[in-house]
């Protein structure tokens, strides 16, 4: 197949909150089977891009397609890891149950989760090293463990494309390792993963491609070619300090 449909195709997409544009004319086609970092300063519209793609926010213009079709027809192909702070972790439920929630969409209106779904959820928890916490009340998990539960929930969806909103923020080393491990495994299975990411120092290590975002798409493509000082200056404006000799970049927020 030479003319493969891209996993994610964004055509001229704009999004606005209360008339204020937060994303302008984004056009992008993603490669398949890669781990793609979405990079940009705070308020650049990184989470907004994911939410708009998943139909959680209305588009002010443009079109999004997943493997050539609108998202509403391709829900089963997409896994979503929202920001950890987006939910109430005091909710009376345990880790296994949260992972099971990832399968509710596939269960349709009336079916209930059965033991096969539980097995799938447990398997997902095992992949992130959380199987021994399956019955733990979620408020008793650490921040990193909660993040891994969210990751497991997306894995249980057995999707083709994953969108992860800042999975690395505020997690411990064990969780970071677990997430990186999962990213590798997903890539081996030829799945496409989008990750909103903040830490510029790990970008080259984690991602094959990047999208540099600041209201507009500044640049996109393979990390080696696109993740350059020049592009970063354009993305972050004057808020970026670059240490010339070490080639290390620090973002200043």
């Amino acid at each position, binding site marked *: 197949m030479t003319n493969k449909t891209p996993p994610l195709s964004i055509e001229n997409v704009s999004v606005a909150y209360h008339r204020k544009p937060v994303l302008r004319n984004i056009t992008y086609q993603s490669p398949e089977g890669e781990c793609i970092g979405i990079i940009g300063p705070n308020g650049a519209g990184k989470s907004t891009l994911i939410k708009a793609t998943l139909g*959680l926010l209305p588009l002010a213009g443009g079109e999004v397609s997943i493997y050539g079709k609108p998202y509403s027809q391709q829900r089963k192909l*997409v896994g979503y890891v929202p920001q950890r702070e987006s939910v109430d972790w005091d909710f009376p439920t345990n880790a296994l149950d949260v992972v099971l929630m990832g399968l*509710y969409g596939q269960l349709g209106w009336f079916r209930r989760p059965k033991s096969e779904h539980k097995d799938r959820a447990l398997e997902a928890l095992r992949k992130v090293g959380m199987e021994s916490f399956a019955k733990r009340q979620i*408020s008793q998990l650490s921040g990193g463990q909660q993040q891994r539960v969210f990751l497991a929930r997306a894995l249980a969806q057995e999707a083709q494309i994953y969108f992860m909103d800042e999975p690395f923020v505020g997690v411990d080393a064990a969780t970071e390792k677990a997430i990186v491990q999962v990213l590798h495994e997903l890539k081996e299975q030829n799945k496409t993963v989008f990750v909103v990411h903040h830490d510029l120092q790990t970008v080259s290590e984690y991602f094959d491609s990047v999208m540099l975002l600041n209201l507009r798409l500044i640049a996109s493509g393979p990390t080696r070619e696109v993740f350059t000082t020049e592009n970063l200056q354009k993305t972050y404006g004057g808020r970026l300090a670059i240490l010339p000799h070490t080639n290390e970049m620090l973002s200043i927020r």
Partner: protein
Amino acid sequence: MSSVWIILTGALIASSCAFLGCFLILRRMAMLGDAISHSILPGIVIAFLVSGSRDPLPMFIGAAVFGLLCTIIIQLLRNQGVQADAAMSVSFTALFAIGIILISLFTQQVDLDLDCVLYGEIAYVPYDTWTWNGIDMGPRAMWGAGAAFLLSLIMVRLFYKQFKLTSFDPALAMAVGVPVAFFHYLLMGLVSVTTVASFESVGAILVVAMLIVPAATAYLLTERLGVMLGLSVLIGMICSVCGYFLSVLLDASIAGCMTMVAGGLFALAFLFSPHQGVVTRWWIRKKLRTQF
């Protein structure tokens, strides 16, 4: 016999309110119950004026329409950037005021006592019976409360996973294709129906207590949603039974006593709940300290 009817009606009301109240609490919408319970007043009055009777059906419809209307207005205001609590207060007080004006305007034609609407009188429940095919079926309020309870039970049982997911993580629910807005309004509709089934007995104000207090108590006692739902119903029933006997003992308002019992149970759970109780935690800390 009449005390059995009163307790049974109270238990049905308390359980159906408690049941739905669990979801209101988990969605941080406790005060929305308050809003709905007040905003149904004009619906009840209009239904009463139009139908000229106190049949439950027109009342249900009128109340459900206004309950939903209230939630829709709140949602619209919020979407326009009005703060959540302000949006809520503005809409329900306005609707409630319309209800009060209607009652005072048509007070000659209608046999709808404002005190009764506000505070309810469960003691009269046994005297307003429902006759079906010439057979006395027992108090009408009990049947209304029972129907509301059954309806909520069926709906929550059918859509348990949707209610759970939309309460915990609405963003994921939307992403996997669960119609979040539909379940929001379904819950609000159920709250409206339950509220109207209850208001005659416990009044528009104390129904808030029944919606929130047993559910809040259950929340303190468990860490599982299914258990929380069951516990809240149990607590609702205890409130009804103990509340009734307390009122006999004190010769005081039954609805007031039921709410007092609910408040007492909440206080107990707050102090002694196995995980979060204030006294329990103090006790655990003390024990740990003496170990070292």
